[in-house]
C-alpha cells in the first residue's frame, strides 16, 4: 500500500519498539484483525484512531500480551516473549484496573509489589505526576471518572515503563483531566518513551501526537505524521462512512 | 429374560442412530452454509 506514510524513523540497525507481522485475530465468526503489518520506532507517541469494533483495542491487547493473535507474530522491545519484557511495558484501559475498595495509595502499593517495587516514594511520585494527592484516603470507588483514570494512569506508569499502551484512557473523563494526561504523555515521550494511545478524542491528543494510525475493517488503512484535519472532528469516524 | 437382551441391543442401536442422526443434521447444516458462503 503505497499511500501509507512510510516510517523513516526506524533506521536500519535499530530495533523497533513494536513490530507486527501479519497479525490476524478471529473471534469465532468474527474477525477483528487481518494481516496487520507495521513497525513502530521507539520514542514516539502514536495515536490509533478508528470506528468502534475496528480492532483497535484488540491490537493493543495483543501488543500488551493479554491476547494471543490467531496468526502472526508480535515483537515488543525486540522480543517475541512478551512475558520477559512485561517489566518495561505499561498498560491502561478504559476500565480503571483498580480495586474500588482501596484508596489510590493502597492500590498503587499493591501493583508496585507486582513489579518488585517496595518503595512507597515511587507510588507517591506517580500519583503526584498525574495530579493526585497521595495522602487522599478516599476509596477509588468514590472517585470521579476523571480522578479514577488519573489514578489508573499512575498505576500504568509507576514502574517507569519504556512502552506505554493506553486503551481509551479518556472515555467519560472531564476535559481538564484529559488535557493534563495528554500533556503528561507528551512529556514522557520527550523523555524517550514509546506511547500508543487508542482514542476517540483525537483533538485532545493532537498537540502531542507524532504519528496517527487509522484502523478500519481490521486493517491499518492510514498512517500519517500528525493527525490529519479531517480526523480531528469528534464525529470524524461517523462522517467518513 | 430374553426381553432384557433385546432391550439392551435396541437401546444400543437407538443411541448410535441418534448420534448418527445428529452428525447428519450437522453435516447438512454445514453443507448449506458452505454453499451460501460460496454464492455470496
Amino acid at each position, binding site marked *: 500500500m503505497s499511500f501509507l506514510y512510510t516510517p523513516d524513523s526506524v533506521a536500519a540497525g535499530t530495533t523497533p519498539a513494536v513490530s507486527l507481522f501479519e497479525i490476524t485475530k478471529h473471534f469465532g465468526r468474527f474477525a477483528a484483525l487481518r494481516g496487520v503489518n507495521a513497525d513502530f520506532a521507539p520514542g514516539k507517541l502514536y495515536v490509533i484512531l478508528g470506528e468502534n469494533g475496528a480492532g483497535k483495542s484488540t491490537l493493543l491487547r495483543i501488543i500488551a500480551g*493479554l491476547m494471543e493473535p490467531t496468526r502472526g507474530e508480535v515483537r515488543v522491545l525486540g522480543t517475541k516473549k512478551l512475558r520477559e519484557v512485561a517489566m518495561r511495558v505499561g498498560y491502561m484501559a478504559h476500565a480503571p484496573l483498580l480495586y474500588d475498595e482501596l484508596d489510590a495509595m493502597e492500590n498503587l502499593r499493591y501493583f508496585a*509489589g507486582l513489579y518488585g517495587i517496595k518503595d512507597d516514594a515511587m507510588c507517591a511520585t506517580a500519583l503526584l505526576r498525574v495530579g493526585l494527592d497521595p495522602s487522599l484516603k478516599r476509596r477509588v470507588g468514590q472517585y470521579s471518572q476523571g480522578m479514577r483514570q488519573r489514578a489508573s494512569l499512575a498505576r500504568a506508569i509507576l514502574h517507569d515503563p519504556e512502552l506505554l499502551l493506553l486503551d481509551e484512557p479518556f472515555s467519560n473523563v472531564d476535559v481538564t483531566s484529559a488535557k493534563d494526561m495528554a500533556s503528561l504523555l507528551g512529556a514522557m515521550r520527550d523523555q524517550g518513551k514509546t506511547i500508543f494511545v487508542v482514542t476517540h478524542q483525537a483533538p485532545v491528543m493532537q498537540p502531542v501526537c507524532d504519528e496517527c494510525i487509522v484502523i478500519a475493517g481490521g486493517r491499518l488503512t492510514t498512517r500519517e505524521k500528525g493527525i490529519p484535519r479531517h480526523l480531528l472532528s469528534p464525529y470524524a469516524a461517523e462522517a467518513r462512512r | 429374560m430374553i426381553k432384557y437382551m433385546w432391550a439392551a441391543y435396541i437401546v444400543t442401536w437407538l443411541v448410535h442412530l441418534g448420534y448418527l442422526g445428529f452428525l447428519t443434521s450437522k453435516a447438512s447444516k454445514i453443507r448449506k452454509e458452505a454453499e451460501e458462503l460460496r454464492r455470496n
Partner: protein
Amino acid sequence: MKAPGTFAVSRSTLAKDLRLEWRSKDAINSMLFFALLVVVVFSFAFDPTAEESRKIAGGLVWVAVLFAAVVALNQTWARELRNNVLDAYRVSPAPANAMFLSKVIGSFIFVTILEVLMTPLFVMFYNLRSIGPLWELAIVGLLATWALVVNGTFFAAMSIRTRSREIMLPLILFPISIPAILAMVWATTQILTGEYSPWFWIQLLAVYDVVFTTVCLVLFEIVLNAE
C-alpha cells in the same frame, strides 16, 4: 528492578484480598448465611436419633461446606473481574502461580472459619458425639478443605471466564471432586461411628491433595492467560 518472587506476590495479594474482604464482606457474609440455612433446612428434612445422626452427619456437613465453598470461590474471582483488575495483574511480570496460591490460601482461611463456626451448630442440632478421636477429625477437615479449595479455586478461575459464569463452577468442580468428597464423607463418618479405620480415606485425601495441587500449579498460567 527485578521481577518479584512468587512468595512476595502471594503474600501481598493475600493481604490485599483479606483487606478487600474486610471492607466489603461479600464472601464471608453470603457464605455464612448460606451455611446456616443449609444446617437449618437439613435439620428439618432429617430428624435422626443420636445413633443415626452419627451415620449421616459426615455427609451433611460436607455437602453444606461444599455448597458454601462454591459461593466463596466465585466471590474471590468476581473481585478480580470488577474493573478488569485482572488485566493489570496479567500485564505485570508477577508470576501467575502467586495469584493462584494467594487465592487458595485466602479461600482456605474462609472455608476453615466457616467450618469452625458451623460445627457447633451441627453438634447442637443433631446431638452429635464422636466415638473416634477429635484430632483425626481435625486432620480430615484440613485435608478435605484443601482438596475442595485447591481445585475449586482453579475451576472458579476457569468458569468465571465462560458465558454462564457462576453456574459453571459446580458443574465442573463436583464431578472431578467425587473421589475427594467420598473420602471426606467416609473418613468423617468412620471417625464419628468408630466402626472402621478412617486412615485409608485420610491417605487418599493426602495423595489427592498433592497430585491436584501439582496439576493446578502446572496448568494455572495457561488458564489465566487463555484469551
